[in-house]
């Protein structure tokens, strides 16, 4: 599904140039659950942003589903992203002004799904995440675990092929964290590819494979048994 080759990304300020990704190469197959680990500043988030087409690389190739996307313009990236990729963030990133239902509905609006179909699919996924009873609440009225479940519901409502999760349990206690990891594992078992950035060895153990980064390069890969 994903194949990146010699990917490079630099950050420049007036005085210093920082290398975030240094000729990084990797591939992820369809149906895999991959965890990316490494110390702060190793390039994990940069990689995730590029994989999620929120950012573009300076050098190298990124092939997504056999399409070279490294130098797509913003419009094309947005189009590819909204149909194929779901995001889960550490800080949930729900829109405060929208209810649970409306937050989950948002990706469907952007992909042009009809209103009746939207209601059906949002209810389906809320039911699956067991937060149906909170559908008319606003994010601030929910606990952290509930908010993350809403965020996951939003990430999967469009039935994406790939879910990118950036420290999904980082803001949760261990019990809520485990719930979230179970949810992600279920999704993976149903066929969704998952790439997750994490600091937690415990969470990483849910994955099939751990890629460890240091200074923008892969330093180790662990296949989980």
């Amino acid at each position, binding site marked *: 599904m994903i194949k990146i080759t010699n990917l490079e990304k630099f950050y420049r300020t007036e005085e210093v140039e920082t290398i975030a990704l240094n000729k990084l190469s990797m591939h992820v197959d369809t149906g895999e659950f991959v965890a990316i680990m490494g110390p702060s500043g190793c390039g994990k988030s940069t990689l995730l942003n590029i994989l999620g087409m*929120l*950012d573009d690389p300076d050098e190298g190739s990124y092939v997504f589903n056999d399409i070279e996307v490294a130098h797509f313009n*913003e*419009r094309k990236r*947005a189009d590819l992203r909204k149909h194929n990729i779901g995001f889960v963030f550490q800080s949930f*990133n729900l*829109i405060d*002004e929208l209810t649970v239902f409306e937050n989950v509905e*948002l990706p469907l*609006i952007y992909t042009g799904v009809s209103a009746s179909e939207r209601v059906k699919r949002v209810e389906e996924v809320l039911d699956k995440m067991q937060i149906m009873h909170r559908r008319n609440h606003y994010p601030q009225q929910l606990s952290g675990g509930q908010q993350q479940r809403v965020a996951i519901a939003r990430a999967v409502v469009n039935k994406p092929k790939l879910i990118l999760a950036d420290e999904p349990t980082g803001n949760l206690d261990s019990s809520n964290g485990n719930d979230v990891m179970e949810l992600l594992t279920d999704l993976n078992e149903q066929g969704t590819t998952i790439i997750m950035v994490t600091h937690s060895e415990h969470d990483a153990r849910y994955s099939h494979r751990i890629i460890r980064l240091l200074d923008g390069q892969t330093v180790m890969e662990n296949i989980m048994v």
Partner: protein
Amino acid sequence: MIKNYVKIAWRNLVRNKGFALTNILGLTIGMVCTVFIFLWVKDEVSFDKFHTDHDNIYKVLATRDFKNNIFTDPSMAMPLAKAIDGGNPQIKHAVVTTYREEHLVEYGNTKVKKYLYQVGEQFFNIFSWKFTKGNAATALSDPKNMVITESAAKSFFGDADPINKVLKLDNANNFKIVGVVTDPPGNSTFQFDFIIPFDYTNEWVKNRMNEWYNSSHNVFVQTVPNANMAAVDKYIDQVKHKNAPNDKISTYYTFPMNKWHLYSEFKDGKNVGGMIEYVRLFTVIAIIILLIACVNFMNLSTARSEKRAKEVGIRKTLGSEKSQLVTQFFFESIIIALIAFGLAVGFVFLLMPFFNTMVHKNLHLNVFEPVFILGAFVIIVFTGVVAGSYPALYLSSFNPVKVLKGTFAAGKAAVLPRRILVVGQFVMSILLISATIIVYQQIQHIKNRSIGYNPNNLIMIPASDDINKSFESIKQELRNSNLVSSVTRTSSPLTEIWWKSGAPDYDGKPANADIIFSGLQADVDFTKTIGTKVLAGRDFIGTPGDTSVMLLNKAAVDAMKLKNPIGMVMRYGNRKYTVAGVIDNVVMASPFDPVDPLMVYYSPNGASAINIRLKEGVAPQKAIAMLEGIFKKYNPKDLFEYRFVDQEFGKKFATEELISRITNIFAGLAIFICCIGLAGLASFTIEKRFREIGVRKVLGATVRQLLMLISAEFLKLVLIAFLIAVPLTWYLMSSWLQKYTYHINVSIWLFGAVGVLILLLTLVVVSLNTMKAAMANPVKSLRSE
């Protein structure tokens, strides 16, 4: 999608009440001004448009060339209309009318003064007055017919049918009412209570119909559609000159009805505009005020952009395109504009009576009128798009990676445009305030100009034949009353010029010295009564010899370049006059213009005005009661009427004072909207710097130092605005002042005062907002991390 936009917009408003209120209040005030100006402008440009054929109706004007002085004259010879009516295939109809006349109208015991026009037979064919009774075709068929307006009919007959009722005019002639028309609307050049036909069997009218050199009527023509106006003008000019071959100074042409109201001023024979200037001025002011309000919106929206940044990031991550976000933010600004407009319409309804009183109009707002709906649409979309443009483009450009990671901070890139906008706002406000003060000063300057006589304690009473006949007895009674210090008669009121002509001849007159003179006839005690100075020679003394002397004003002596005018012989018409005295320049016409040369000669019995100077300290009410008794005794048939000359003179400033009042209000509102925006911006700055304020306080900063810290940021901007506004205002207002012969010079002190005012205002507004943060316990702000 749209539902989602509306939802988000609405919830954002509800959740950020302060922000919403500030924005909506500013926009509402801006829109109230805009709607009022829109209504005023709409009324001004609609003048006379209710006549069905307004595109093809013209007034005949003459350019009269006195070599040194060219002027435009609407007064025409009476037979002209009949001579051109039907004489040219392009001219459908032509009609002659009098100027508007005031007459005493009598029915039963009711006697009132009313306005009327005497008109030729084509009057109702050309102009579209709406008949509610009777019919236009036969209304003017008999010289004893009369057409009355609805409100005049009501004032005489109540709800009774006015048709066939007989009214008596000027105690002499009876007229039968044959038609009723709706009242002329406020936007009509013609304003009247009655229309009566000329009586062509009357000796006076018969004579006038053969008089091609006496110009004292108005002539109107109605052409066929798309007439060749150059040819029509040429034809009229030819007809007039064929009948009046000695009229070598005049050129005749037509002036379209569509321009009568807005382009009514002429200078040196050329049209120089008129109300159209104010229409343009107010349109510009409306746009400026709306822009100032829009700038508030832009500033506040971008200032709170960090709060919206997360939403933008999430939406982009979820697949929103930039264009969708731009649309969303425009949608929000248009919704705010829509709410503001709704409120504005409410306020307009509430404030309409005050506005009408102020502008002396009877405007009303009809929200179902297509032109209003179109105007509303334009205002809302304009405001929404202008106000929303910068926030929409700015907010939608956020990088989702940065905002979601929290590393996003609105950098200098966002602050600079905001500062430029604030500076622009203040430039406009300073300009409006300074301009308002300059207009006021200019009016005061003209008011304080020496007008050459003393209009206070001076009462004018219109004369009649009876009054002139008994004048000596009236004068004796006035003297006996002990309230009056002197009395004189004049051929026209002191605040009007009724008579203009060429200069008299005199020995040594240069061949090309064609000077326009004003003329006045007066009685003894002329200079004493009106309170003007005799600069040389003497006033009239009432001896038989006075009939062959004249007085000149200083302007006449200057224009004729006379060294020793006293005793010089002036030939005027077929008579000779010796100059007996030179008087000061009395301002009778426009106080904004120089005084024309004036000749005054002694001819007391044709007077139309009795001028009475009261003794110092006499209560006007007491004097009026005394005057009423005396004048009713000698002139029982007429109503007793009087005018205070100073009040009549004051009316000459009506337009300027109106303009001054309106600009005062608009300038005040503009600065108010600016302050609202400033307050909003200050509170956002403080919110952003809350932690910094806390840290500084812990380190020992005083409240005053903190106030200065925050205020300095804004004072700097005001200072820059001031430096831009001063030369701009100076340039604009200096060129405006040039159109007045007597004008002030723009003073540097004025700008100093306006500058201090604006600085103080900024300081107060910013301090009020900063105070809370500066006084707060720093522990609070530091803990809130």
